[in-house]
């Protein structure tokens, strides 16, 4: 059998054969929501701000539990995969180490002075997250919130943050503080996003039309030359 034939057989073997081998879509794909925080003013007290934190994927909470010493270290395997279990969020949420971590990593300042945080009772941490109430020294109309959760585990973590009146921000390693207006209106990101997305698709459509037009015109010119 020639070398070429062997290569051919190998290509076909890989093509047809590997289709039967273990499908691993689950290993490649499932991913959780990004880490989020929501900043809301207290409707009754002008000096209180609530920050609700919600973890990303289910494995993130397990990794955090391991780093806080609440879960066994062997839950994070050598290859980086995480053996997360359904009762992990309960173990993490019930621990004062976790509430301490949250108040250490999320800080609020109002009028240049730090606000005192307290984590509200946690129920269903993985699903509903945890909320901390921050009491500032006096009434506040804007607060500066710093979020540094999980970036100690991996610097690439991002936090998608939403505030009053549709304000949005992204917290990340180097950019971990943001000032939120508690009274004013947001910058209308939704409308801006719609316009930008429509503009991209419009430009794509125009390009496609231009390409089709050019190709057809060229074909027409060639045909005319041939017939002439």
């Amino acid at each position: 059998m020639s070398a070429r034939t062997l290569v051919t057989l190998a290509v076909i073997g890989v093509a047809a054969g590997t289709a039967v081998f273990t499908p691993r879509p689950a290993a490649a794909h499932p991913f959780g929501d990004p880490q989020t925080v929501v900043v809301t003013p207290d409707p009754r007290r002008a000096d209180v701000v609530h920050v609700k934190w919600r973890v990303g994927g289910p494995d993130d909470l397990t990794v955090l539990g391991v780093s806080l010493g609440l879960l066994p270290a062997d839950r994070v395997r050598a290859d980086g995969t995480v053996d997360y279990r359904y009762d992990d969020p309960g173990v993490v949420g019930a621990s004062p180490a976790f509430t301490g971590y949250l108040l250490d990593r999320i800080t609020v300042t109002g009028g240049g002075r730090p606000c005192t945080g307290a984590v509200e009772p946690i129920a269903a941490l993985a699903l509903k997250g945890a909320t901390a109430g921050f009491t500032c020294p006096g009434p506040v109309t804007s607060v500066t919130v710093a979020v540094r959760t999980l970036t100690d585990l991996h610097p690439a973590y991002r936090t998608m943050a939403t505030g009053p009146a549709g304000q949005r921000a992204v917290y990340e390693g180097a950019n971990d503080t943001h000032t939120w207006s508690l009274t004013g209106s947001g910058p209308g990101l939704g409308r801006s996003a719609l316009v930008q997305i429509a503009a991209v698709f419009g430009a794509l459509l125009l390009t496609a039309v231009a390409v089709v037009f050019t190709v057809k015109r060229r074909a027409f010119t060639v045909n005319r030359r041939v017939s002439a």
Partner: protein
Amino acid sequence: MNPGSLSDRLQDLIHAPGVAPLAFVFAFLAGAGHALAPGHGKTLAAAYLAGSRGRIRDAAWLGGSVAAMHTVSVLVIGVAWTFFSLSDLIRMEQLTTWLQIAAGLLVLGTGLWMLRRHLRGSHSHSHSHDHDHGHDHGHGHDHGHGHDHDRGHTRHHQHDGGQRPGLFLLGVSGGLTPSPAAFLVLATGLFLGRAGFALLLVLTFGAGMAVVLFGIGVLAVAGSTLVTRNARTHATLRLATRFTPMLAAGGITAFGAGMIAVAAVHLAALA
């Protein structure tokens, strides 16, 4: 979620003022890298193209439909997550697992359709033989081997464009579940008010995926053509050309069933 290094760079670049050309290079490479990761229908595409003796154009169709579906999927989920509180309705890991089940069903359906087509082809040999004779003569193909009408039959379908629905379904299933990196880039863009730039990056990411899948498709088509050409001289290859379509159809069916099973187990664990 543990973001990969290329996607980290992408998210860093999304902050850069103006439109950073480097970001597009990273997006393209990230897309190509994502398509090379396991579970992206590469083997399915190769099996399909080898099994149905597709053409280069079919490989392009496949890559294109994966890229288009992936962009649509990222856009719909990203916008729903950012502006319509999608996470209050369903957790992302549940949504993506359901999408995997849907993708698995599409693959299973395509596999069963291929099996049925091949089985039907072998049952109606005498009929298809008569039919293909005329067709094959017209193209100047040689005859005289028992297996040739099997080949002719497949080619006949190919000229009809009969493989397009299968290719399209495989492409859609390959792009149905968004990649975490692309989703994060779009979500970051939407949160920062840079939706247009982020969408362009997602499109470039899809182009990276499409190029890799197209390349793999071309390899499968070239391999399959080589086998067909050599089949005249080698008995083993003759046997291979005869069974490859059935093997590919069976493999795709098994893969689809496997995808559904894995996703269902994962979904049960999440519940």
